[in-house]
């Protein structure tokens, strides 16, 4: 269980998160939606302490990770896999080496075992035989799939997805969503997706939370969320320029 309690974050004079309260259920996929610049990625980066809050806490299995030292934090981070917005593959390495990298650095597996696991993940994301290529030599969709393979290679309990379909065409976006759904069914991780790719992302989400004006405006199951009468949620879902959400 991930629990976010009264999270505040300010950059310069700009308050981005102004008291976030959110519970993310184990084994479920929760999607956080919100307008561009609403702080979704900032919130996501607090979940594995890539950013630290000004105030508030993030509890992973009851442990406040904002108060942990380097060693303990690294232990917690090993529970996580992260798919970054641009995949964030290490561009000095091939795709295969990127996927094998966490295994080489963080496990005592033999090179044969590493190869077996890395090739299995590459096959699961449809990149069989592409491992020898460098990130600069493959398309955006392939980078995302390679990033997903790397995020899942350590068999993490929690996987964070930062706008997994941004920059992809609708067909490729759908294939990434399907892949996330398939991987979730296979591995049963707790997933947190940050996206504004609606309604497509709802197909793989168990729960949806909406971030607006620095707080969680609404949270519930996908069905409850779609039926919400909250004017902020309605405006966002319908894509209206007029309403309580300031667009410009």
């Amino acid at each position, binding site marked *: 269980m991930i629990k976010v309690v009264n999270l505040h974050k300010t950059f310069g004079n700009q308050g981005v998160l102004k008291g976030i309260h959110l519970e993310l259920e184990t084994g479920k996929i929760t999607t956080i939606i919100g307008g561009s610049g609403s702080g979704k990625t900032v919130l996501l*980066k607090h979940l*594995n302490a*890539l950013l630290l809050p000004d105030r508030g806490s993030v509890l992973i299995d009851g442990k406040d990770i904002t108060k942990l030292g*380097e060693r303990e934090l*690294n*232990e917690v*981070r*090993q529970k*996580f896999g*992260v798919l*970054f*917005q*641009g995949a*964030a*593959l*290490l*561009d000095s390495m091939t795709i295969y080496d990127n996927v094998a*990298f*966490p295994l080489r*650095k*963080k496990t005592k597996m033999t090179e044969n075992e590493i190869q077996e696991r890395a090739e299995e993940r590459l096959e699961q994301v449809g990149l069989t035989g592409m491992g020898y290529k460098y990130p600069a030599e493959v398309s955006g969709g392939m980078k995302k799939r390679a990033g997903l393979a790397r995020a899942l290679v350590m068999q993490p309990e929690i996987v964070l997805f930062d706008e997994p379909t941004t920059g992809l065409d609708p067909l490729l976006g759908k294939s990434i969503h399907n892949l996330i759904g398939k991987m979730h069914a296979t591995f049963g991780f707790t997933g947190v997706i940050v996206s504004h790719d609606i309604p497509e992302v709802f197909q793989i989400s168990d729960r949806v939370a909406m971030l607006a004006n620095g707080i969680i405006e609404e949270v519930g199951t996908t069905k409850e969320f779609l039926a919400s009468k909250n004017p902020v949620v309605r405006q966002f879902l319908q894509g209206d320029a007029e309403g309580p959400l300031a667009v410009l």
Partner: protein
Amino acid sequence: MLSLLAWIGRSTLQQLSGMGRMFLFLISAFAWAFRPPARIRLIVHHVRSIGVDSLSVVLLSGVFTGMVMGLQGYYSLRKFNAESFLGSAVALGLLRELGPVLSAFMVTGRTGSAMAAEIGSMKVTEQIDALYSMAINPIQYLVSPRIIAGLICMPLLTAIFDVVGIYGAYVIGVGLLGVSSGSYFAGMESSVVFQDVWSGLLKSISFGLIITWVCCYKGFTAPPMATGVGQATTESVVLCFVLILVWDYFMTSVML
């Protein structure tokens, strides 16, 4: 008047806190360098990129620096009928000052800028965040091996610069302008003492630290925007040049 004082105060505080962050970064890099696992392969990789890849530019600049020193030295010394001191003038100039400083400039331009750009690009494209998220400390993985490699490579490159510079001046002085080969090397032998050699090498080690430290720090703190990498690269090169010259003065004043 008050606003001017406030601006001066704010700027001073910003500079001081920036310097503090740079020093903490260096301390952290040293602390991580001694924590297992040892990154021998990475150190070897960076020795190649700092040392081997800078070799051609160091050789070229070394030989031409020596040739210029041969020419200038010869015409200056001739005014005092002291052409036979050409060898010692060239050797002392190269070993004490020009060798360490110019080879450091070459490495800054050739490798330091690439270092800042590479790490800056990793910062902007979230690769550094990716390392953190995989529980791998980016300072241990990216910075400490580069600093160790810089400390290893700079004295070696400087020694090479010194040697090719001395032979560059030899080609001009002895080969072209008629200074006797014997007096060229005899003058060098009688005037150069071991302190001249090690003071230059000590300087080059400290320059190796400055280059890798400043360039890694600037890359690490590159602003996360399109122009961030360019800005980090420019700032790292300028700061390296300035720090090398300032530090060179202090080291010279202490070691003379």
